């Protein structure tokens, strides 16, 4: 089980114009399910290719299991990769595809058959082992390519958007399979995706990447509930942002004045005073009601602009009395309609504050 370490990795493309990796430092632990998450073009696939040895970094070092591997060729790195584009041998059946690596390694037939059988059982592959790839659904094909990767008996797996090309239901199923397998085999996995829900549900830790840089690393819960940057807050899940000014402290806790002079209490201690801030709160934490509920604090009047149905929950777009628009995620049982007057409450314990970004909020939120 190897740990992986990237030290000051940089990579430029197109005569140096495009920076795919900008002094990246990352440490991935032994046996960890690690995900690199970011918008398209952020450089996440390049990082994976550098670890695999497909792309050479311009600068920096790659260590696997403590060993510098910059000059180790791909075939000697003992790394298995699974890509979005499923690459099975079309002229080989399921069994032959899975047994390919053991055969190349010269493992005798009897043991090879046993290896394939074990993997088929582990993956709960209910396919005919004599079927050819083009007879299988895409989900089944991707399972076979996963089986083939396992059969190579390596202990570092690199997944490059392995689920992106699949039907959403199949994607969900395979998501759980991936993590289960990695944990069962006790290997290290590095997974690259742009799908935030996938990243959150599958990973031990996530690195958020933007424009060739690692913005933040943490567990899914840490990053979701306590993001340290506006970009992480924005990219991972849905977030409402409101501009304001940190005014005074109330028992050491920051009070923020929003547009229209509305004051909001927070639980943020001693961090900001008399400066521009960005206040952030997730839609599921904003409570809406038809009358003022004294249980809640930070109540702002507003009205429903629009609603978006998502099954058992509804996204309401609200327009607050100061003109600011926010989203609230609410159980579908209480329904409101466009134009309804409501009171929105912003629980202080769920409010996050950020320093106002130098280049403005919009620039900070841009995905590209």
């Amino acid at each position, binding site marked *: 089980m190897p740990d992986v370490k990237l030290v000051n990795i940089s990579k430029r493309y197109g005569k140096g114009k495009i920076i795919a990796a900008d002094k990246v430092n990352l440490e991935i632990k032994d046996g960890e399910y690690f995900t690199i998450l970011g918008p*398209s*073009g952020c450089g996440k696939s390049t990082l994976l290719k550098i670890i695999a040895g497909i792309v050479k970094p311009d600068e920096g070092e790659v260590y696997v299991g403590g060993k510098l591997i910059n000059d180790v060729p791909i075939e000697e790195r003992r790394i298995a990769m699974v890509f979005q584009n499923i690459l099975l041998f079309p002229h080989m059946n399921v069994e032959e595809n899975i047994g390919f690596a053991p055969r190349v390694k010269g493992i005798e037939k009897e043991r090879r058959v046993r290896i394939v059988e074990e993997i088929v059982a582990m993956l709960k592959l209910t396919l005919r082992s004599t079927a050819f790839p083009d007879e299988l659904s895409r989900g089944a094909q991707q399972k076979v390519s996963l089986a083939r990767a396992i059969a190579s008996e390596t202990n570092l797996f690199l997944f490059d958007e392995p689920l992106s090309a699949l039907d959403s*239901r199949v994607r969900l199923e395979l998501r759980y399979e991936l993590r289960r397998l990695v944990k069962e085999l006790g290997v290290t996995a590095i997974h690259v995706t*742009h799908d935030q829900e996938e990243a959150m549900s599958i990973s031990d830790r996530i690195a958020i990447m933007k424009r060739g840089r690692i913005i933040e690393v943490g567990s899914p819960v840490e990053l979701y509930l306590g993001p340290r940057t506006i970009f992480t807050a924005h990219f991972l899940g*849905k977030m409402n942002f409101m501009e304001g000014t940190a005014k005074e402290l109330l028992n050491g806790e920051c009070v923020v004045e929003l547009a229209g002079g509305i004051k909001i209490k927070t639980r943020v201690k001693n961090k900001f005073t008399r400066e521009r801030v960005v206040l952030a709160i997730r839609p*599921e934490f904003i409570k809406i009601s038809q009358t003022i509920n004294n249980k809640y604090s930070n109540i702002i009047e507003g009205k429903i602009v629009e609603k*978006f*149905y998502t*099954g058992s929950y509804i996204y309401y777009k609200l327009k607050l009395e100061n003109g600011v628009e926010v989203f609230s995620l609410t159980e579908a049982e209480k329904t409101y309609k466009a134009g309804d007057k409501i009171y929105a409450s912003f629980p202080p314990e769920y409010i996050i504050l950020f320093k106002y970004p130098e280049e403005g909020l919009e620039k900070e939120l841009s*995905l590209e």
Partner: protein
Amino acid sequence: MIDIKLVNVTKRFGAITAVDNMNLEIRRGELFTILGPTGAGKTTTLKLIAGLLNPDEGEIYFDGQLVNDLPPEERDVGFVFQGYALFPHMTVWENVTYGPLVRGMDPEEVERIGREILSKVHLLERADSYPYELSGGMQQRVALARALASGSKLLLLDEPLSALDARLREELRFELRNIVKEVGATAIQVTHDKYEALQLSDRIAILRKGKVVQVDTPINLFTKPNSIFVANFICDMNFLEGIVKKVDEDGAIVELRGGPLVRTLDRTHRAGERVVVAVRFEDVEIKPGETKHVYGIHGKIERISFLGPFIRIEVILENGEDVSVKLPATIGYKFELGDRVTIYFEPAKIIVYSYPREGLAEELIVE
């Protein structure tokens, strides 16, 4: 704005019937979604409406006029297909404003529409770029902008957001509906993403193997799915096999495999009948510890997935079946892997289906 009608439409490709005797009515100004698994015939249906394919049987009407023999260019349709074909020698701006200009729209109006729509798909800054200078996701947004700006009365959108990052897709979803409503076109969208369908659509048709299995509003589809297939496709749902043990004045009591009992309000099945009990992930009640309750089922937490606003917990029940529970993350935190729990299904939240003729597994196949 026009209305569309498909009457007994069939389309075969060799031995495969892609669209099987389909009847569909799409209302004037509606944002209508065709939803179904890969290979259900969604794109074929769209191509038949566009005139890019001819039906083997059946009729297609636009505003009551038979259009079977009308070539695509005369159907006045704006479309976005996967593999978006933009004019390669034109800039983003020229691509988007081409339609309105050809129609002879007033230049000032063209300018206004172009700017408005490009800013909504976040591409105003790239107005002077050529398609080859853009990423796949950007090109798809240009194709969408071009269709929206075209002034066509009918928009056909085949997975219009599929090439986009999950994050951007979510953002544009909200915009797409607004723009379609603003330009006042009838729009037919094809997707396999149920959240996209639920959030955007006025009505949704669920397709399976070339047939329409249910057409309804998002809310009705979600609350009253007419089959196990639709329920599985549109909701996150648990399906448990059982036999109706008895029926009293409150409804049926179902015995699951291995003996656990479930109280339902169902009155459409009789004692002894084989059934499937369906409950949404978010409707399952979960309590810490193994408490005693006639209709409580004990189990152990097998897997916990963090989804952001929600936590999904998978529980292996005492009868060996597994049940998924979706909870707001703020409540879900208190549960841990390996915890013993009690599961309860609220009778009003249960849907009871007859056991499917071809078996439950077959009904749940989505590929």
